[in-house]
């Protein structure tokens, strides 16, 4: 009887197996077909490439830091420089697979992000991102640093010469003060001039002004034309302030370090109305050929020691909150507060104006003002 049951059991088992195979194969048949016809992607383990192509402003990266990186990681760094963000954009557009790291100013980050030209950073490969200054992380052009690592940050402010000016109230009023006719230097950027006027007007939504507000700002800016010494580029402004031809300048914070060194009478303020913020950021183009090396370099740059060295070499503050102990105290004294306005209220009022490019009214106002001021950028 036992033998009988065993036989029956195996028979039923055999049938169940047959049915099982039938069901399994028919359900998985798509996979079988797929295997024979469909190309599949094999994921490769990331390997550090032996090359890294950087596209940067001139003198904006310490050569020694690059050399150290090359030695430490065995990566050959090829550095190319540009002098205009538009050139950079044009290059990256036509050759998205040429560069691994590009220096992009904040509104181009916003723009290139929109043009889908940037590769989202793999944050886990940049653990040193934790050292990034809190203010830089809370930017509005790339919240959360998805596409860029802020490198150097600055803002436009007012530099005055203490020797000649004692009644400065911290606002833009001084830029329209007839007392200093011929002693005021404005930036040779129409956008800066217009934005400055908008801030002085106290426009509520300064990044998206109404056309009336823009018109008012244009008129205000035109009033300034007779008062100013000139609309100068930053290098000219530097000279004018050092040799005291200009007593007041609407100038980039990053120029101040050098000026202060040569003329200690010059002081720099963030205007109380809030101001124009800008930054330079390192981005990886979406088709960068050496993405691993690019990530490694970004992480290396944010190492506190490296950041400190780089800051001192390029004379600008890298946005690393942990590097202070490695910096020369004198350097700290000169540079402090030149990356972000020290006063919290001012920082809160300040803006990046990233959407100006897409704002037709704003663009038109810039063109009108530019034509009337005859500014050559």
């Amino acid at each position: 009887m036992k033998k009988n049951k065993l036989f029956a059991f195996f028979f039923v088992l055999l049938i169940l197996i047959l049915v099982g195979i039938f069901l399994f194969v028919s359900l998985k048949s798509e996979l079988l077909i797929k295997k024979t016809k469909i190309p599949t992607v094999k994921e490769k383990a990331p390997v550090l490439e032996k090359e890294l192509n950087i596209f940067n402003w001139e003198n904006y990266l310490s050569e020694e830091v690059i050399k150290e990186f090359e030695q430490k990681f065995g990566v050959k760094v090829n550095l190319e420089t540009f002098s205009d963000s538009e050139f950079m954009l044009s290059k990256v557009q036509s050759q998205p697979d040429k560069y691994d790291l590009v220096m992009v100013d904040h509104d181009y980050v916003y723009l290139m992000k929109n043009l889908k030209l940037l590769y989202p950073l793999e944050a886990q490969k940049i653990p040193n991102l934790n050292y990034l200054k809190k203010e830089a992380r809370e930017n509005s052009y790339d919240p959360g640093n998805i596409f860029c690592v802020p490198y150097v940050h600055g803002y436009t402010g007012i530099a005055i010469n203490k020797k000649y000016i004692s009644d400065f109230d911290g606002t833009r009023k001084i830029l329209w003060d007839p007392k200093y006719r011929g002693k005021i230097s404005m930036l040779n950027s129409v956008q800066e001039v217009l934005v400055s006027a908008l801030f002085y007007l106290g426009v509520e939504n300064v990044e998206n002004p109404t056309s009336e507000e823009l018109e008012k700002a244009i008129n205000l800016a035109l009033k300034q034309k007779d008062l100013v010494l000139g609309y100068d580029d930053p290098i000219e402004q530097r000279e004018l302030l050092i040799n005291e031809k200009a007593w007041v300048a609407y100038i980039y914070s990053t120029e101040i370090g050098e000026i202060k060194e040569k003329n200690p009478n010059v002081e720099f303020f963030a205007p109380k109305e809030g101001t124009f913020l800008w930054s330079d950021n390192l981005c990886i183009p979406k088709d960068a050929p050496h993405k691993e090396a690019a990530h490694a370099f970004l992480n290396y740059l944010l190492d506190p020691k490296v950041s400190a060295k780089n800051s001192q070499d390029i004379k600008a503050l890298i946005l690393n909150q942990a590097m202070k102990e490695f910096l020369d105290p004198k350097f700290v004294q000169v540079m402090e507060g030149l990356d972000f306005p020290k006063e919290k209220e001012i920082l809160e009022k300040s803006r990046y104006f990233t959407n100006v490019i897409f704002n037709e009214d704003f663009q038109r106002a810039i063109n009108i003002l530019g034509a009337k001021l005859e500014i050559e950028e």
Partner: protein
Amino acid sequence: MKLSFRNKIFFILIFFGLLPLLIFSFNIFFLSSYFLKETIFSNLEEITRLLSVETEDFILNSFNDISILSENPILKSSKISLEEKSKELNKIVKYYPRFQDITFVDEYGNTLCSTSFRFYGKWQTNAWFEKAKEKKEIVMSEIYAISDPKEPILSFFAPVFDEEGKFSFLMAVQINMERFFEIFDRVKVGKEGYAFLINSRGDILAHPNREFLFDKISQNYSLKETFERKEGRAEFNFKNTDFVATFKNVALNQISKVETPKWQIIVVQPKKEAFVLLNSLKKQIYLLTLIFFLFIIFLSVFLSRLISQPLKELTLATEKIAKGNFDVQIKSKRTDEFGELAKFFNQMTKKLGEYFFALEESKKVLEIRVKARTKELEELNKALEEKVQERTKELQEKIEELEKMKKELEEKIRELEKFREITVGRELKMIELKKEIEKLKKEIGKYKIKYEPK
């Protein structure tokens, strides 16, 4: 104990019933899947082929038109002013709706004139501009996004030479992208299928949904392999939808001596939609297989019962007969061999019963005869016993007589004893005489031996 006959039949039926069913289902399943998939893919392939021809035509025509334009005597002439050239350009743009804008750029990247002045950029660092300048050939750009105006563009850069064959400037021609995208927008596969264009870096260059432009195609689409294979079939997931697709490279390399972008057309249809028929067919096949499966099991149970039931009845009946019960009759209405068997069995049982009855009867007769005989014998026996008793009596009488005689004889023996004692003396003398005679006889014997002849 062995497997019962019924189970044996059951298992054999199941085995030979299910095996063909499964094989049949397998075949139907694979064949139908194969043919349906083949139909879906060949449909997609046909669309892909047509699209690639259309795309190639569009680019080739653009290329040829630009080539003709660059030979336009008005544009070429160094004697004609820029203003007049500009007028001519505006006419041309109106005539060729394929061109959105034509701009003349000098070798340093400065714009000389333009039909719309909408497209400006830093030509100096534009790789395609540089290549056209360097190679003095018509160069086609990739489709790329520009910021001002914010839209995708495709540019051709053509060198223009003056009458003496000296390079004078470059012509940057912007293609009207809407006309180009139309080629792809027109494609509809089923309800949800569509076509799009990618380059070898996986950027989407044309897509019915403009928001997807310049996005990367999904990671699970193998760019390298598909570009190497030039055309084929694929399945991949894009924007959370599973697609079946066919792809084909756009052959642009013949149109220019300078390197052209590598493009690939992909025609997709969501799997869900493409495989609706296949899935319903699958369900039907599953259902049918299940029904047949159950049917075969039912049939096996039924058939094995049908075959083994009469045997079981027969066995029971036979068992009863074995116990001596001949009243058993198998009730069967069947007309087949089993029916016949039952009939004959019943006949047999009946006959057997009759024989058995007859046997019983004859046994009874025999018993009566035996009884009669026994009686006779008993009587005979009695008579014999009586005779024996008579004889025994006679013998006893004779024994008594003999006893008497014996006593008489004993008395006579005693008398003789007395007589013998008297005669013993005489006897002894007789013995001595006898001894003398013996001696003599021996001596005579000795002489006899001596004379015995040898």
